[in-house]
């Protein structure tokens, strides 16, 4: 499946069972070995609520952002 993740195109390979027309967000995060607690995720510009991760699905061509907190005070 081709996605744009954090601004870069990526080919996602997951051996997990996936809905016919997409990939579950938890599976996507696992494929990157990401701890869901430490990030926020947006799909096509919409931020996904933490309690909605289970139901969230990414589809071919989606634009996904995955962010974390970093040290910073001002611009």
């Amino acid at each position, binding site marked *: 499946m081709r996605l744009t993740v954090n601004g870069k195109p990526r080919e996602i390979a997951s051996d997990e069972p996936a809905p016919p027309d997409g990939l579950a967000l938890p599976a996507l995060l696992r494929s990157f*070995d990401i701890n869901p607690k430490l990030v926020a995720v947006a799909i096509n510009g919409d931020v996904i609520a933490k309690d909605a991760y289970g139901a969230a699905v990414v589809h071919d061509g989606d634009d996904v952002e995955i*962010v974390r907190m*970093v040290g910073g005070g001002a611009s």
Partner: protein
Amino acid sequence: MNDRLTIAGKTFGSRLFLGTGKYASPEETVGALEASGTELVTVAIRRLDLDNPGTKTELDFIDWSRYSVLPNTAGCRTVDEALFTARLGRSVTGSDWVKLEVIPDPKYLLPDPIGTLHAAERLLAEGFVVLPYIHADPVLAKHLEEAGCATVMPLGSAIGSGQGILTLHEIKIIIENARVPVVVDAGIGAPSDAALAMEIGADAVLINTAIAKATDPTLMAGAMRKAVEAGREAWRAGRIASKPYASASSPLEGVAR
């Protein structure tokens, strides 16, 4: 005695807020936070490095049970970027507070008054507690207060410049008119700057570079803590007026001759 600061219903014993950027090591970050006595710490939101998703940052060494986190929109140049980053920050931190920055200019990092107000109105409608970073413009500060912002955060001088409170006169006017807490953000370079901000009646100050880039950040953090307390106590203690002439502090009469 009790002289606590309340912002949007949350009460703070410390009037010194800290940024977490530019530290040389996690040890310096943790040491400075502890020495400063701060209770509110701001963080930036950035894309995860997907090739090294497990890499630790200085933030992973902070005992977050001791500090409230304040996600910021640092780096956002437009209203849309700020809205998106604010929403992501709320999701990752679990806090609906946001230090709002809309900063188009890369050299002086001065905030956009128009974009900041627009973004604030949108975020307030979405239930955020908004702490906007602004130029020291008293009329803009009033607009943001009336829109429902929890504080206004006027700049003393350019971010990271360490030039101190160049906008002293305007900040005094903002404080005189404000009905929300006024937090002086950006420009503080030394404890004397922090003390001055508090002496004129600011409710708090936010400091990052002056501590993070000091030769000894932990020692400087403690110095800033004392300076903020000193300035606040001086404001409460009622400083003497400045006079253009002298006033003897010893009796004029009775000198032996």
